[in-house]
């Protein structure tokens, strides 16, 4: 006994559940606001592969480097504000740039955050033969003489790599600005600096450590994740559990222009939510070295805005902004 209404309802439900019928998204595009090969490229690849079952057309990845992402946000806050087919990759670094005003007048209110690709976490790394065998050893050395340890990473002062070190120092009441910090041109050069002995501690990311696990060259002292991570990182303690209140989550995700219609915004958010349910998406995240941190739509938008507000406080305390 099927009433026409019921049939319609089932049909409607089927349409809503089966992602591919998202008619609004045509020629989907993911903008990586950097040169190819970096973290933003990776973020877009996750969307490209992970959302493929949810989208009718294959997603194109385009690159828009310039001003550490400022060029892309500028474009999406001025001309492509209502583009329903494009998402732009962001990371916690972009959020920090928004918080510290590096993107000029553009703030979190000029874009809509739509979905996440996953998360990575900070890691405190030393050379295998380092005298600092534990995070306590390292932090004690900082307490003794804050300028006694040379710290390095791939980002400039005020970048998220610097923030990791700054948060660690803040957790023991030291002044971040007093630290001897060496800014390398990317993580690769910084790892070379660590292996070569130019720096004693490297503020890296968990994901980039995967190829180096078991190579016997570097030692991970602590992870800056909120809690312990699954294998192959299960054996590493978090800074928090060791008694240092320093957490750094590198959120990777996507935003759209602020004038995008709710219809288009929700279509994307639903595509992300549908993908999060699949085993394939989890597999892609894992292959790309990210941990699941699945959130989409208004929930994400609100969470990111809260995150930026927090960053503003941290940046102010660290002396990055007035």
């Amino acid at each position: 006994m099927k009433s026409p209404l019921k049939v319609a309802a089932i049909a409607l439900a089927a349409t809503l559940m089966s992602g591919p019928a998202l008619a609004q998204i045509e020629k989907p595009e993911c903008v990586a606001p950097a040169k190819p090969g970096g973290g933003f490229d990776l973020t877009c690849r996750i969307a490209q592969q992970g959302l493929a079952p949810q989208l009718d057309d294959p997603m194109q990845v385009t690159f828009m480097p310039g001003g550490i992402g400022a060029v892309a946000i500028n474009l999406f806050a001025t001309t492509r504000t209502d583009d329903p087919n494009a998402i732009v990759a962001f990371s916690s670094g972009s959020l920090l740039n928004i918080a510290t005003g590096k993107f000029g007048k553009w703030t979190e209110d000029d874009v809509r955050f739509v979905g996440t690709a996953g998360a990575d976490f900070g890691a405190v790394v030393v050379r295998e033969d380092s005298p600092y065998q534990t995070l306590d050893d390292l932090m004690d050395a900082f307490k003794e003489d804050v300028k006694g340890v040379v710290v390095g990473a791939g980002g400039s002062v005020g970048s998220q790599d610097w923030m990791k070190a700054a948060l660690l120092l803040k957790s023991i009441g030291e002044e971040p600005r007093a630290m001897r910090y060496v800014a390398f041109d990317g993580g690769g050069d910084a790892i070379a600096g660590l292996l070569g002995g130019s720096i004693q501690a490297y503020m890296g990311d968990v994901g980039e450590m995967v190829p180096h696990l078991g190579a016997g060259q570097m030692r991970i002292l602590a992870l800056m994740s909120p809690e312990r991570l699954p294998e192959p990182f299960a054996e590493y303690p978090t800074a928090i559990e060791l008694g240092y209140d320093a957490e750094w989550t590198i959120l990777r995700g996507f935003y759209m222009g602020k004038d995008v219609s709710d219809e288009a915004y929700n279509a994307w958010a639903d595509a992300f939510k549908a993908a999060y349910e699949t085993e394939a998406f989890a597999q892609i995240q894992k292959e790309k070295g990210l941990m699941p941190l699945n959130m989409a739509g208004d929930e994400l938008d609100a969470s990111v805005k809260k995150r930026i507000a927090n960053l503003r406080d941290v940046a102010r305390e660290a002396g990055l902004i007035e």
Partner: protein
Amino acid sequence: MDVISGLSSGFAVALLPLNLFLVLVGCFAGTLIGSLPGIGPINGVAILLPIAYGLGLPPESALILLAGIYYGAEYGGRISSILLNVPGDAGAVMTTLDGNPLARKGEAGRALSLSAVASFCGGTIAVILMSLFGPLLASFAVTFSPADYVALMVFAFASLASLVGKNPIKTLLGALMGLMLATIGIDANTGVARYTFGIPDILAGIDFLIVVIGLFGMAELIHMVEVQVSGKLKLLPIGKSFVSWRDIMTVKWTILRSSLIGFFIGVLPGTGASVASAVTYGTEKRLDPDGGRTFGQGNIRGLAAPEAGNNGAAGGAMVPMLTLGIPGSGTTAILLGALLLFNVQPGPLMFEMRPEIAWGLIASMYIGNVALLVINLPMAGLFARMLTIPQKYLTPLIAVLAFIGVYSVVGNPFDLYMIIALGLFGWVLRKLDFALAPVILGFVLGGLFEDNLRRALSISGGDWSILVSSGNSIVLYGLAVLIVAVPVWLARRQRSRVATDG
């Protein structure tokens, strides 16, 4: 796995029909891509990466294809430098200095074929050294500290002292302008934005490519238009010249020295083809028995040195990427990203865990270099005929290609205005009789010099003695003194000998 068995298993992979085909396709496409002004190895690989990935090839095949494009483009970069005086990328700037004068003399075919041989030697010597000493070199390269890079840059500046030609003041001013351009953008050590005037597009600084295409390419085009409009255009003679055995014998030591220097500079993470070609050119000019007088007027040593150097560096840059998972240049960073896309973890364990990829890639580099020589020698004549295209068609064609090249990688219209502005600036400089090479070198070397100097001083906490505290740096300072002093001393001895003879 030792080198011989590793290589033989590598050749087994690289000689599979599919992989052999891909390396040939990659080399051919790379040469064409590299020959376009504005598109060099870095954007060639970046643009084709999604295609290689989309083809669904096994990882080793895709990587072989991309690597073929990489060194193919490094070969091809010399073509527009020689024929048009428009370098395809930063590594090909020095090639214009003697390559273009040769083409103007009607010896384009000779210049193209000679530089193909130099490129082949540079690339092959690099891959031989890589297979023999790769891991050893990589572990040496990481001991190179920021202070040592400072010394290396001092050495580079010293070897370039030879560029101070007729007009030392203008050369130094040019280098200073390059240095000033390099300071634009966010300062890594303080996080402060310098000279950005609130323009977001230059927050991260000005890309090498933009400076090279703008200052060289656009300035050259404006110059061409000016010559045409004022009716001073001279048709270039096209001789059927080709490289002779005597030429190769003349430059054999140049090629060997430059390949070795280029390779070692390439192995260091942080310096690549542009530094290598600058240092090799400068070194050869300093060592020239005639005191470098004919350099810049079509000297074949001045052409062979940067080409052997930049191809040596392209090979060298693969060493830290394959053995340590640390990219030695922008292009290898993209290749590293490609490995990750295929879920291959580069790094210390790759030779053990994925030997078919590591050794297959190395073997394909041997094949690729031979293939490039075979492709490039017969094409030299064909490319040289490009000069027979009437100027009124050639100029807009190059302009369009340069714009597409810049836009295709960066995708930011602002950069198109930048190359025009820099082109006008470069043209004015040329009118004022400035050489443009010092500007570019000031930009490249000056940026590296500043970054590493400040890194070194952050490490030492502001103590300058760190700059002379390692063996590496002391050796480099010693070499810097030698390269400045020896030619002066030689010249003086020659003069006194002439005096005693006479």
